[in-house]
């Protein structure tokens, strides 16, 4: 049983981590493609149209990867988490079915038109199809976060005698206080990934002295989108998400911040430290006093509850994992803001294209938004453990009763192998397209 739960969790974590590498780029990139196409309609400058087409091609590969790795996510609710599906399907089935009906159809129907229909449709309608693809991908994110929010903060339900969760208020699913902050936080984070990706390709072109005109356009657009999104992700959205955690999952917040003991007179903010579970303290810490209380409650001396105030069976199951995930996310987010402020400043002084050290930094930044997004997702999900539905249904109660650990291990290995292949192919192809550059895409 223990084994089975472990493999089930590993499989879900692995497949969703890999899956989420793709939609986070497509969601942000679709907005930027729409922006390029819009600039083209306004200025008639062909460079914008070429830019849109170039990114469309990368988008298409990325989208296909997102779709094929997304189907297993939906299946796994039934295959690996049958008990969870049976008990909560009447509720989260709503948002998941809506995702299929409202967003996937929209995205996939118009993606075909967007990719193949430029000549048939003309530029205005081509722009419209691009916009609809963008709308579909953002709607998809919304409905997934709505599902996620219900698991973090269940609303609009009652529980029957047989343990089934029954929906009794549909609109509550969408007025869930957890939903909007998480959604905008997530979308801003996706936009970070896309804008860092676009500016990294721009920096690569300029440093490489190839396709320099496109390099400048990508860099400029990427940096402006990047500045905007990396600020939004921290404030107000990140702040609002954290306040939700403090309010509704205080034990999670204590573990995220590594607060083992409630301390009187205000909590310090820990910049660096290592959680030591055995001795219940942080090792090697560097901390600034009272800041955390202020950030959380706007009061320098507010008390923040430590883990010692809670029952240890409700502790997040992986406290160090949660703590590090959260700190890596916050740390990277801070670096993103700093880098983008400097880059924008140089852009404003018209010196960005010559400031090579920034270009190098931007180019090597590509993996870090992915890491920040992934650790952010881990913070949310590890934070919810040991619960599947917070405070109501434990993870150990949600797994499939008849699937043995051997089967799960077998399919986990299958996914690892297959996704490794997919990852290599993806990098190869995107690398090839980037290297070829935008102008060769035309014919």
């Amino acid at each position: 049983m223990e084994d089975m739960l472990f493999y089930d969790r590993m499989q879900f974590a692995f497949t969703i981590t890999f899956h989420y590498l793709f939609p986070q780029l497509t969601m942000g990139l679709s907005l930027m493609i729409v922006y390029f196409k819009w600039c083209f309609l306004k200025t008639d400058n062909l460079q914008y149209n070429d830019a849109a087409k170039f990114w469309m091609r990368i988008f298409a590969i990325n989208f296909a990867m997102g779709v094929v790795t997304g189907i297993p996510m939906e299946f796994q609710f039934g295959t690996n988490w049958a008990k969870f599906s049976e008990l909560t399907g009447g509720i989260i089935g709503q948002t998941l079915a809506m995702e299929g009906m409202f967003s996937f159809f929209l995205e996939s129907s118009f993606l075909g038109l967007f990719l193949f229909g430029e000549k048939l449709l003309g530029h205005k309608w081509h722009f419209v199809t691009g916009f609809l693809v963008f709308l579909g991908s953002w709607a998809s994110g919304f409905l997934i976060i709505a599902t996620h929010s219900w698991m973090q903060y269940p609303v609009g339900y009652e529980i029957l005698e047989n343990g089934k969760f029954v929906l009794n208020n549909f609109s509550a699913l969408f007025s869930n206080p957890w939903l909007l902050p998480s959604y905008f936080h997530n979308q801003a984070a996706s936009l970070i990934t896309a804008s860092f990706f676009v500016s990294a390709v721009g920096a690569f072109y300029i440093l490489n002295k190839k396709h320099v005109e496109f390099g400048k356009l990508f860099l400029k657009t990427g940096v402006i989108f990047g500045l905007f999104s990396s600020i939004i992700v921290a404030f107000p959205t990140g702040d609002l998400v954290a306040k939700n955690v403090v309010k509704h999952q205080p034990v999670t917040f204590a573990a995220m911040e590594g607060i083992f003991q409630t301390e009187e007179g205000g909590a310090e903010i820990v910049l660096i430290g290592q959680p030591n579970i055995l001795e219940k303290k942080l090792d090697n810490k560097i901390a600034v006093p009272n800041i955390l209380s202020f950030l959380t409650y706007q009061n320098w001396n507010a008390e923040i509850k430590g883990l010692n105030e809670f029952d240890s069976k409700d502790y997040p199951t992986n406290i160090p994992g949660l703590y590090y995930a959260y700190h890596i996310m916050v740390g990277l987010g801070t670096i993103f803001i700093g880098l983008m402020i400097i880059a924008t400043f140089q852009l404003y002084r018209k010196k960005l294209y010559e400031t090579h050290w920034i270009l190098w930094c931007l180019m090597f930044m590509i993996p870090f938004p992915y890491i920040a997004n992934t650790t952010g997702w881990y913070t949310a999900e590890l934070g919810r453990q040991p619960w599947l539905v917070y405070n109501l249904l434990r993870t150990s109660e949600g797994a499939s009763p008849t699937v043995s650990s051997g089967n799960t291990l077998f399919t986990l290995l299958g996914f690892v192998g297959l996704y490794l292949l997919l990852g290599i192919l993806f990098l190869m192809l995107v690398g090839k397209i980037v290297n070829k550059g935008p102008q060769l895409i035309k014919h």
Partner: protein
Amino acid sequence: MELFWYMVLMTMLAIYIILDGYDFGAGIIHLFFAKKEADKKAITNAIGPFWDANEVWLIAVGGVLFFAFPTLYASSFSGFYLPLMMILWLLIFRAIGLELRGQIHNRLWEKIWDKAFGVASLLLALFFGIALGNVVRGVNLGMVNETGVSTHEAHYFFLPLWNDSFSPEANHLGIIDWFTILLGIIAVITLTIHGANWILYKTNSDLNPKLKQVVFKLNFVLLFFVIVSISIWHLIESNPFENFINYPWLAIFPIVTLVGLFGLFKVKSFKKDGTPFVFSSLFLAGGFFTTVSSIFPNLLPSTNGVNPSLTIYNVAAEDYGLTVGVYWFVIAIVLVAVYFTIQYKVFKGKMDNIGYGDH
């Protein structure tokens, strides 16, 4: 409410079978008949802008099943764990085959992905037929053992891929037995015909005269297997005609199936290229509805006398959720109809010059 969602689900499944069915069929044709580069191009062009959206019907069916019949979703997805995972892998393989083939111009690269696309399509057609076979045959719900005791909750089960006897009447059933394989073969033949008809409809390729021959010949094979399967059906279902006698209007489904089948024999004389596709669609939809209505209201029959079959009534979600679902579903399905109309309007007619794979 349950009945409404049951009909929605079955209709969506039928649409999925017709739409993704021609993709699978095109893949099988690709595997066996496409020798020249021009033939391969014609085939992939014919499905190029559509297959992605077609596949979404599967995801949508999964979503609606999860939401309307959560207990069935949980029970069947965990019970058919291994084949479902393999279907997932095949779907992934087929999709990347299509997407990646045109990205690099290298003979070996193209060969690998051509085969991936073709073989995955063939296996998927086979697996979906086998899946339908499992659903009508039923499973050992509750995993009742020899002494008649359930070892799990009454609606859970787990099937291995096969057992040592390959018999649909064995005590310990497997996914693959001779009955389910038979349905798998029928699915492969039907979808090959269906895919060929789609290619006839959407292209002017040099393959077309040959495909007409293929469809014509395969019809005889199909007719043979259909007769075989009807004559052995009573082995897995004690009274397959019960529903049709009690509700005579259901007879429309077998009639549609037969009309579809016999229409296909005239494939060589049709004036319009789209007509054979209409008939193979009728055959597919009719055959599917005939099969599921013969077990109605069961969704998954129980093969032991201990635990009851899963019916649309004992696996459905509660009424409130199902009722609100109707509102958003109606809006969504109207939108979907609009999208598909636009899509098929824009890409109407022959697809030879769209140039799939060059994007």
